[in-house]
């Protein structure tokens, strides 16, 4: 597809998102904000799964660790400094990812999938059952962080619209950052590792270090999402680290189509959209979701982002083979 058309489409979506608070009700503004946070989460996993080929089934751990960090270090009834807690949360998530990466990146294939899940479960367990998580029901972030910097307060997160724009800006920033990363020398190495890791090693690349860096970066970015989620809803539970959460974000990445950042964003929209729609219909919405997932894998393995290309091909423009 013509890349000009694609860029135009992306800009149109961005414009739509920027105008949304003006037209949407407060329920929908919060919903779209949630989707945008999930889009960050999905993009962070896309870096690992889609671009480096590392299928992590434990990504929710870093999302949850960041969420818990902000809820735990923020004072109970005062506003913490936004920039400080943001940095702390992202650092905590990144550090956890680095540490776990040292273990899990020693494995490959099915083992990797299983051990990432196991480590995430370990983290879930720590927050659910030990004193660190305070309560297995979760904890509150009572006051939204304060955005002051050297005496100047650029915006207030207590205003839902400003919170929305803050989240939108964060999503755009992550999107831009990852776009650069993927095109950079580092990103090309990741692509090479995905394509043929053995060859990369014989060409002189210390592939373990690159994978570890990718794993850490993905964890840190998942932390950005976890931080924003905690700020948005003011509530953090161990379920943020559950394997359901890890499965959901993986699903978003697949739904949107691997190998594409925009696909990850689309996947987040699709997943949460479906989730909202199905849970309106029935309390057993997960059954419908499960059926959609099974159907998607069986019939649509290239995901939503692959859909235009498949439609294009059936129309037969005489394109060169893939």
């Amino acid at each position, binding site marked *: 597809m013509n890349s000009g058309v694609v860029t135009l489409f992306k800009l149109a979506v961005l414009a739509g998102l920027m105008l949304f608070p003006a037209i949407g009700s407060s329920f929908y503004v919060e919903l779209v904000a949630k989707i945008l946070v999930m889009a960050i989460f999905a993009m962070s996993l896309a870096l690992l799964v889609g671009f480096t080929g590392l299928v992590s089934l434990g990504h929710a751990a870093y999302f949850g660790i960041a969420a818990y960090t902000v809820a735990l270090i923020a004072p109970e009834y005062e506003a913490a400094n936004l920039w400080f807690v943001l940095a702390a949360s992202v650092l905590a998530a990144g550090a956890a990812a680095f540490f776990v990466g040292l273990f899990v990146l020693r494995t490959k294939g099915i083992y990797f999938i299983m051990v990432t899940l196991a480590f995430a479960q370990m983290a879930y367990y720590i927050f659910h059952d030990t004193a660190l998580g305070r309560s297995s029901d979760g904890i509150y972030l009572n006051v939204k962080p304060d955005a002051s910097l050297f005496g100047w307060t650029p915006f207030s997160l207590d205003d839902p619209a400003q919170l929305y724009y803050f989240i939108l800006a964060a999503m755009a920033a992550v999107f831009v950052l990852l776009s650069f990363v993927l095109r*950079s*020398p580092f990103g*090309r190495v990741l692509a*090479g590792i995905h394509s043929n890791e053995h*060859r990369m090693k014989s060409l*002189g*690349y210390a592939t373990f270090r690159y994978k570890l860096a990718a794993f850490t970066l993905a964890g840190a970015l998942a932390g950005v999402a976890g931080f924003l989620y905690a700020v948005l809803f003011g509530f953090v539970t161990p379920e943020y680290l559950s394997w359901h959460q890890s499965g959901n974000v993986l699903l978003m990445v697949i739904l949107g189509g691997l190998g594409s950042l925009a696909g990850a964003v689309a996947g987040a929209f699709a997943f949460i959209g479906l989730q909202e729609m199905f849970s309106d219909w029935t309390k057993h919405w997960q059954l419908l979701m499960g059926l959609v997932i099974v159907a998607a894998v069986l019939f649509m393995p290239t995901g939503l982002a692959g859909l235009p290309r498949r439609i294009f091909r059936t129309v037969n423009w005489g394109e060169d083979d893939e």
Partner: protein
Amino acid sequence: MSEAMLVADRLTRHFGGLTANLEVCITLERGKLHALLGPNGAGKSTCINMLSGDLPPSAGRILLEGQDVTGLDSAERSHRGIGRSYQRTNIFPQFTVLENCRLAAQSRRPRPWRIFTDAMKTRDTVERARAAIVEAGLGGREQRKAGLLSHGEKRQLEIAMVLATDARVLLLDEPLAGMGSEESAQMVELLRELKQNRAILLVEHDMDAVFAVADTITVMVEGSVLESGPPEQIRNSEEVQAAYLGEEEHG
């Protein structure tokens, strides 16, 4: 005066009860092409794998320009100047020919922290890649997707990638495998040019090619070196003929 660049000193490799290589000694000199021959199962793959770092030896040493590199893995050896091409084509099929070689070249100038640089626009890696592509005879095919190349072109790409890493010692594993006679002749020419400033180890089954271009030939049988010397000596050696004839008898 040619200097020894890579020396394999009594390389040995066991796999459980099986000894695949027993005290194999090989010396690669700059400007010379050293061919490694032997019937199937002789242990040639094991030997080249140990030299490239893909397989650790059970005993023995490998010296690169006098330095002991036995403990280094394949990535580290690549940085010391050892390049390897593979028998089963080992490229990046979804990338273009140019990108395959550019990635190879990038390994010398990784720049991992330059997040805002567009890798495909880094002049030095692109130019090094183009030069390697031309040297390997693939000029004009830069934009083709590697997976769509003909078999012979893929073998050339294997070599181009190694060249792009500025390797001074080339370990080539059956580069002529599956090639027709014209492609083979081109590859032999290429090998002749390549050895000028480098040391090359060539594992091959194509006898014509080997005798056309090798300066030294080592013949392995059942894990050990049977004989080693100039092509004429090997051609006339009765033991070598017996070894190959014996192989033919068993079919």
